[in-house]
Each structure stands twice: as C-alpha cells, then as structure tokens.
C-alpha cells in the first residue's frame, strides 16, 4: 500500500518539477505567452487547463480499451473539446470580465499540446487512477508556470499584483512587460534560469562522483 502511494505521489510530483510541461518539455506555449499579462488571468487559465486536463485524462483512460487505434486522435480531440466548452461556459457564468479578457484563448485550450500530449502519451496507456494523478501533476506544473510568468509581468509592467499596488506610486512601469514582446523575454529568461539550475545540478553530481 505504501509503495503504491509512493508511485502515485511520484507521478504527481514529476509533472510539477522534473517533467514540467512548460519549462522542461516546452509544450503549450501559446496560452503561456498570451494570457500571462496579469496574475488573475494566469490563475484562471491555469485552473481551466487543469480542469480540462483532468477530465479528459479520466475519460481517455476510462475508454482506452474501447477506442480503436486508428481514430484515437479524433476521439481524444472530441473529448477535450467537450470539456473545454464546459469550462468556457463555467468561466462565463462566474465572471464575465475575466471571460472577456481571456477571449478566444479559453476555446484555444482545445489545441493546447499538453492536453493531447498527455492523452496520447500517458492516459491512453494507464489505469484511471494513475492517469488522473498524472493530469493533476501536469496541470499543477502548468499553473505554476503561467503564474510565474504572470507575477513577473504584472509586477514589472504594472507595479501591481492581482490588482493590488506593490511598488508604490513613484514606480515607473515597464510597459514592455505587458506588451507581447515582454512575454517572450520573460519566458526566455525563465527557461534560461531553469537551464542554469539543471546544469549546476549536473555539475555538482559529477563532482560528487569524482
């Protein structure tokens, strides 16, 4: 029992850190760049994607023996599109304002490569429990990634966090940060940082070996 818990915990954690979908696998870049100009948008996007990821992984895994291999991609996309529509209507019902500022990008969760990628690479091969854990981990990893971009961009571009002023009135906002160019720069900088961390860990390991 203990061992089993460990493995499902491992599956969960691997999505957050070791195989983070954004920083390590570089998947699902479009929403990461597009909606991270404020913290609120990032959180909503992260949760919506996690919701779709978990629900579609659950159903893909449940039906994995029923779906013929030839039409699997089409079936997966159908399942995903259904839950994206659900997520879109939920967001619209809760906050019209957020729905408006995210715009077409909620619908575009359908073509987020992370979701189809997990359905194909993981959920279609494993039982329901593992698939859901994997989806939760990946969703959390994705949410963390969009949040880390959103925090930097809103703080530097607007001087606020989730609408609350942090930097004080004398702060001159770096408006490039909330413009498209800033998204590329911040994501590039994060990727650099993670590359550096991994390189350092590798070097330390080598030193220990020697």
């Amino acid at each position: 029992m203990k061992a089993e818990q460990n493995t499902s915990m491992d599956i969960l954690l691997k999505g957050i850190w070791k195989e983070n979908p954004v920083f390590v696998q570089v998947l699902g870049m479009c929403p990461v760049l597009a909606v991270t100009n404020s913290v609120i948008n990032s959180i909503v996007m992260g949760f919506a994607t996690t919701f779709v990821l978990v629900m579609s992984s659950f159903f893909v895994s449940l039906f994995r023996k029923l779906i013929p291999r030839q039409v699997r991609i089409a079936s997966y996309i159908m399942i995903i599109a259904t839950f994206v529509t659900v997520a879109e209507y939920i967001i619209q019902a809760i906050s019209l304002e957020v729905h408006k500022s995210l715009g077409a990008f909620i619908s575009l969760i359908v073509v987020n490569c992370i979701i189809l990628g997990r359905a194909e690479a993981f959920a279609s091969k494993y039982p329901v429990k593992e698939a859901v854990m994997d989806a939760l981990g990946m969703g959390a990893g994705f949410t963390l990634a969009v949040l880390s971009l959103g925090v930097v961009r809103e703080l530097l571009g607007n001087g606020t966090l989730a609408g609350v002023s942090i930097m004080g009135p004398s702060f001159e906002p770096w408006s490039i940060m909330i413009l498209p160019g800033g998204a590329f720069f911040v994501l590039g900088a994060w990727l650099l940082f993670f590359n550096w961390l991994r390189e350092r860990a590798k070097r330390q390991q080598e030193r220990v070996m020697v």
Partner: protein
Amino acid sequence: MTGESLSFIFINAALINNFVLSSFLGICPFLGVSGKLKTAGPMGAAVTFVMFISSIFAYAIHQILLIIEAPYLQLISYIVVIASAVQLVEMFIKKFSPVLYRALGIYLPLITTNCAILGMALFQTNRGYDFIQSLIFSLGAGAGFSLALIIMAGIREALDLADIPGLVKGTALTLMIAGILSMAFMGFAGLGG
C-alpha cells in the same frame, strides 16, 4: 467591426496584429519548424492553405449553427473541419511531393493542433466578418504566419555559425529573438488605418 476595408483587414492580420508575434498563435510550429529556411516556406504555405479552407467551412458552419441555435457546438465542429482540411492537405502533398512530405514530417499532422488556425476561425466569427472579409482575413493571417516563420528561420540559420554560450542555445535564445521581432512588429501599429 464589419465596416473595415479589405486592405485593412489583410494588413492588420499580417503585420499589425501578426498572429505569431503579437497574438501568440501558432507558437509550437514557430519554435519547431523555424530551424531551416527550406522547410519554413512550404510549412507557411501549407498553413495558409488550411486556413483558407477552414475559413470557408467555418463561415458556413457558423451560419448553420445560427439557424439551429446551437452555439455550444461551435468549437467541436470547427475542430473537426480543421482536422479534415489537414488530412486533405496531407494527402495532396504526399501525392505531389513525397520529398517535401518527408521534410515536414510530424509537423504536418500537427497543423491540426496549431492554434493559429482555430484562432483564426474563432476570431472571424467573434468579429462578425462577412464571407469576403473572412477569406481576406484568413489569407492575411496565413501571410503573417509565413512571414514570421521565414524571418525566424533566416535568423536561426545565420545563428548556426555564431559562437553562442551553451546555456543560451535552443528555445531560450529563440524566445529572446522572438521578443525583439515582436517589438519590431509593434512599429507597424497605425499602418493602413
């Protein structure tokens, strides 16, 4: 928004609000296929063609969904149309140029999950473009995508010869270049208005 002139729609989609560099649509193939100029051109053409076909069908589907009052089917029906259009292009390229077919490889079927195409179909519906405007919009979006892809491929080919620190190589560098390109494209704001 329906009063926009055709030339403005085209320039707006291709340059001012470039799909890749300012709306962040189609980033995956933009990062994946932009390594070589030779594949960037055909990839841009294939995406433009799929956009054009999908635009026609998306317009028709939108009209039908309006009549039967089922807007919640929009997303599902669009994605099916795009998947079929990609299949069509794939068969076409396989028949007429097997070399190109092999060069594009996995990225050809992946056009289905290219957000630029679905995004284009959703934008044209949201902005209420009529039939001709939709067609021009899809062509402009395709041109913008191809342009960004080709510029990036040109820069990356030149960078192959440069001496770059190992840490920066790869996606991080591509993103930085994309950021600078995106700032450059901001200069088009106000054009054609």
